[in-house]
C-alpha cells in the first residue's frame, strides 16, 4: 500500500485530492438512502421522542423493527445472510440521519455497530447463519458487553471469567458487565470474559440460565436508550459461541471499537448539523432589540464557527470512510474471515480514533453554542437544544474516552514506527535536515497556499514528535502530558488536510457556486483555527522536551514552519455566516 494511504501514513507523505473521498462524490443510491433515512426517522420516530425519552415499554424495539423492515439494520451484513452488503458510505449517510430520532440513534448504533459487527467480521460461518438474519431484520437485537464496574478504559483488566466445563462442551461465565447499551431489550450479548486470564469473546443469549440484569441507569442524557448491568452467574455458553479466537478477544474488542468509533463520528457530525439547524431556526424567529437574533454579528460568528467545524469533521469522516471502504470491500464476509478482518480493521485505528475525538468534540461545541444562541430558553427542557446538549456529552465518554483515543494516536504511531511499519523517525530526522529550505515563501495562493500550510504543519508535527522521542526516550511512552500534545497535533493535521483536499477537489465538481464558496471559506477558516491550536501544542511539546541551545534552534525552526500569510479571519467568518444564515441549515446539506 502506498505510504500516503497507509494508516497514519498521512503524517509522512503528501496526499492528493484524488486520494480522499468527499461527500460530494456520494452516488444517487447513497443520496436516496440518506433522504429515506431522514424522512423515516423524522416522521416515524420524531413525534415520539418524548415517549422514547421516558423509555415507554416496547417503543425502541418497535422502531428497531421498522428500521429492520426498511433494511437499515442490515447495511453491513452480507446479502446471503439477510443483509444488503452495502459499502461504508451507506453506513455513514444513515449514521448521520438517525440522530434525528434522538436516543434512538444510540440503540441503533449499539445494535448495528459494536453489537452486530463482531459476528460479521469475526464470527464463524455457522454463527453468521444463525444470528445475522435475525439481527438484520430487527427480530433480534444485539448488545456489546466489555465494560465492567472495575474496568472501563482498562478494558483488559476485566474480571469476568469463563471456565471450560469438564465435558468440554460449555464455558461457564461469571461476572458483571456495566453500562450495557440495549441491555433492557437485547437478545444477543457479545460478552468479553477471561479464559485463563486471556480475554475471549462469547455470544450469550438473553434466555440462557444465569443471565440477569440490573435496573435502568439514571443518566444525564440519551435517556431514551436502555443502559443496564448484565449479570452473569454460572452461565453455560456452548464452546461454539466463541467469536474470534480463544484467548484473543482483544482482537475482536479493539478492532470492533475502531469501526464503532468511525460510526460514532458519523452520528456525531449528523447530530452537530441538527444542532446547527435548530439554533438557526430559533435565531431566525427570536427577536431582541426589534430584530431577529440571526442579524447580530455576535450570533452570526457562532454560526460560522459551528458550520466550519461541521465541515472539518465531515471532511474527516468521509475521507476515513473512503479508506475503510477500500480496506474492507474485499473481505469475504460470508465465510471465516477473522484473520483478514482483524488486519483490515486495524489498519486505520489511528484515523478511527481521530474521527471519534474530533466529531464528538465538534458536536459538543455545536450543542454548547446552540444553547448559548437560545439564551435562557436553551436551559428550558421544552426546547430540543436542551436535550441535544445533554445527549451530546456521552460521545466524549463511550467507545473509549477521548483521552484514551488521543493516547492511542501517538501510541499506535510509535508502535508502528518501532515495528518498521511507518518510517516515522526517519521522517522526523529529514525534517530537521530540511529546515533550511522550508521557510521559503511560496507563490501559491488560495487553497494551494492552504495546502502548503498543511505540509508545514505535518513537518512541525514530526519535528516536535522527533524532539520528544529523542530527548525523552523511553520515558515518552509514559509521559501523557506530552503524548496528549502530540495527539492534538496529529488531530489538527488530519482535520486540516481533509478539509483542504476536499475543498480543492470540489472546485472541479458540478456543484453550486455557493457550495464551492462555502467549502473554500470554511476550509480556510477551519485550517487557520487548527493551525493556531497546532502551533500552541507544538510549542508546549518542544519546550517540554528540549532546553538550552537546542531549544532555541528548534524554536527557530518552528517559526519557519508556522510562518503563514495573514488572513482576515473576521471577514471569513462573515462570509461563512452569510451562507449559513441565508440557507438556514448546514449550507451544503
Amino acid at each position, binding site marked *: 500500500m502506498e505510504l500516503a494511504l497507509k494508516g497514519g501514513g498521512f503524517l509522512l507523505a503528501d496526499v492528493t485530492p484524488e486520494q480522499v473521498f468527499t461527500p460530494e462524490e456520494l452516488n*444517487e*443510491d447513497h443520496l*436516496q438512502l440518506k433522504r*429515506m433515512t431522514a*424522512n423515516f426517522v423524522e416522521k416515524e420516530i420524531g413525534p415520539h421522542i418524548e415517549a422514547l425519552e421516558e423509555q415507554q415499554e416496547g417503543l425502541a424495539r418497535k422502531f428497531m423493527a421498522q428500521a429492520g423492515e*426498511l*433494511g437499515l439494520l*442490515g*447495511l453491513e451484513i452480507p446479502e446471503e445472510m439477510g443483509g444488503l452488503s452495502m459499502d461504508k458510505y451507506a453506513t455513514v449517510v444513515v449514521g448521520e440521519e438517525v440522530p434525528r430520532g434522538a436516543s434512538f440513534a444510540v440503540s441503533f448504533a449499539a445494535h448495528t455497530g459494536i453489537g452486530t459487527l463482531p459476528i460479521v467480521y469475526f464470527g464463524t460461518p455457522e454463527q453468521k447463519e444463525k444470528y445475522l438474519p435475525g439481527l438484520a431484520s430487527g427480530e433480534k437485537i444485539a448488545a456489546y458487553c466489555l465494560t465492567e464496574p472495575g474496568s472501563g478504559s482498562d478494558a483488559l483488566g476485566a474480571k469476568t471469567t469463563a471456565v471450560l466445563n469438564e465435558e468440554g462442551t460449555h464455558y461457564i461465565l461469571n461476572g458483571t458487565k456495566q453500562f450495557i447499551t440495549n441491555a433492557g431489550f437485547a437478545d444477543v450479548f457479545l460478552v468479553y470474559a477471561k479464559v485463563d486470564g486471556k480475554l475471549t469473546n462469547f455470544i450469550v443469549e438473553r434466555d440462557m440460565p444465569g443471565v440477569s440484569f440490573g435496573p435502568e441507569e439514571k443518566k444525564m442524557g440519551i435517556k431514551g436508550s436502555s443502559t443496564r448491568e448484565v449479570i452473569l452467574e454460572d452461565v453455560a455458553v456452548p464452546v461454539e459461541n466463541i467469536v474470534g479466537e480463544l484467548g484473543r478477544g482483544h482482537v475482536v474488542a479493539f478492532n470492533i471499537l475502531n469501526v464503532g468509533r468511525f460510526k460514532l463520528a458519523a452520528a456525531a457530525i449528523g447530530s452537530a448539523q441538527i444542532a446547527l439547524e435548530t439554533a438557526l431556526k430559533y435565531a431566525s424567529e427570536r427577536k431582541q432589540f426589534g430584530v431577529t437574533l440571526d442579524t447580530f454579528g455576535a450570533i452570526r460568528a457562532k454560526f460560522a464557527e459551528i458550520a466550519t467545524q461541521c465541515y472539518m469533521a465531515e471532511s474527516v469522516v468521509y475521507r476515513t470512510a473512503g479508506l475503510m471502504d477500500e480496506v474492507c470491500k474485499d473481505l469475504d464476509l460470508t465465510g471465516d474471515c477473522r484473520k483478514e478482518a482483524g488486519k483490515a480493521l486495524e489498519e486505520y485505528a489511528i484515523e478511527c480514533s481521530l474521527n471519534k475525538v474530533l466529531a464528538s468534540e465538534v458536536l459538543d461545541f455545536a450543542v454548547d453554542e446552540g444553547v448559548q444562541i437560545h439564551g435562557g430558553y436553551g436551559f428550558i427542557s421544552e426546547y430540543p437544544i436542551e436535550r441535544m446538549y445533554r445527549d451530546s456529552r456521552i460521545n466524549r465518554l463511550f467507545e473509549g474516552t477521548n483521552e484514551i483515543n488521543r493516547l492511542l494516536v501517538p501510541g499506535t504511531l510509535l508502535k508502528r514506527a518501532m515495528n518498521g511499519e511507518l518510517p516515522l523517525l526517519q521522517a522526523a530526522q529529514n525534517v530537521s535536515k530540511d529546515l533550511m529550505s522550508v521557510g521559503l515563501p511560496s507563490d501559491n495562493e488560495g487553497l494551494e497556499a492552504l495546502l502548503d500550510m498543511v505540509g508545514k504543519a505535518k513537518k512541525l508535527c514530526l519535528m516536535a514528535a522527533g524532539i520528544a522521542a529523542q530527548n525523552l526516550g523511553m520515558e515518552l511512552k509514559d509521559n501523557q502530558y506530552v503524548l496528549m500534545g502530540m495527539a492534538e497535533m496529529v488531530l489538527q493535521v488530519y482535520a486540516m488536510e481533509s478539509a483542504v483536499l476536499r475543498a480543492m477537489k470540489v472546485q472541479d465538481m458540478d456543484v453550486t457556486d455557493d457550495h464551492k464558496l462555502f467549502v473554500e471559506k470554511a476550509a480556510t477558516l477551519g485550517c487557520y483555527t487548527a493551525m493556531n491550536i497546532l502551533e500552541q501544542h507544538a510549542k508546549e511539546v518542544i519546550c517540554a522536551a528540549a532546553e538550552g541551545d537546542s531549544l532555541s534552534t528548534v524554536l527557530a525552526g518552528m517559526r519557519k514552519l508556522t510562518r503563514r500569510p495573514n488572513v482576515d479571519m473576521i471577514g471569513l467568518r462573515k462570509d461563512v455566516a452569510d451562507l449559513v444564515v441565508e440557507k438556514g441549515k448546514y449550507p451544503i446539506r
Partner: protein
Amino acid sequence: MNIVVCIKQTFDTEAKIALDSQGKIDSQGVNLIINPYDEFAIEEGIRLKEQLGGEVTVVSLGGERAQEAIRTALAMGADKGILVSDPSLEEVDEWVAAEVLAKAVEGISYDLLLAGRIAIDDGSAQVAVRLAEKLGVPSVSSVLKIEADGEKITAVREIDGGTETLEIPLPAMVTAQKGLNEPRYPSVAGIMKAKRKPLNVVSLADLGLNAGDLSPKMVVDSTALPEARKGGRKLEGEPDQVAKELVQLLRDEAKVI
C-alpha cells in the same frame, strides 16, 4: 391492471424561496421532493398492483433532476419510469403539460391513471384533469378511497360536508387526496433495485412533438416574494374616537371596507 402515475418534483416544503437575478424562482441548491399528493398516487398504484398484478409506470415532466423523483418512485415499488425533459419545456403551463403528458402516456397500455390532487408548489390542480380530457377518459378528483376489480373502480371522494361514492369504468383518471393512504418509505433493497429498473428520458422530438406548437397559453409576467409582515399599529384614545379612526383607516388605508 396497468397503472400510470403522473408525478411532479417540487421544492421541499421547508425550502427557502429566493429569486435569482432574472427575478425567477431560484432552484439552485434547493432540496427537491416528490409532490406529497403525488406520493399518495404512487403508493396507491403500487398497492393496486400488489393486489391485482400488472405494472406501474411513473411519468413526469421536468428537468434532469426530476430523475431523482422517478427513482424514488421506482425504489418504492413502481416498475418503470418515463421523464419528458426538454430545454424548451422550462416554462410550461397546465395546457402544455397536459399535451406533452398525453403524448407520453399514449404509448403505454394503461387501465388506470393516477396523480396527486394538486401540486404544492404552484397550487395547480389542472394537469391531471386536462390530461384525462385529452385522453378521453373520465376523471375523479380528490379521492380518499379506491377499490378496483380490473373492469371498473369504486372511488370515494370528498365533497362539501361529506363524501360521495362513485363507480367509474376503466380506463379512468383518479387524483389523490390526503388520507388515501400512508405512502411507504423506499426500502434499502428497493433503492438498490431501482437503479436496474428502466427509466427513459425522452425529448419532445422523441414524442413526435414540436416545441413551436406548444407555446403556453398562460405566461408568468413576474414573480415576487410576499412583502415582509409589518408590525401592527396601536390606536390610543377614547373608544368612540378610536373606533372612528379605525373605520377610517380600514377604508382609506387598508382599503378593506
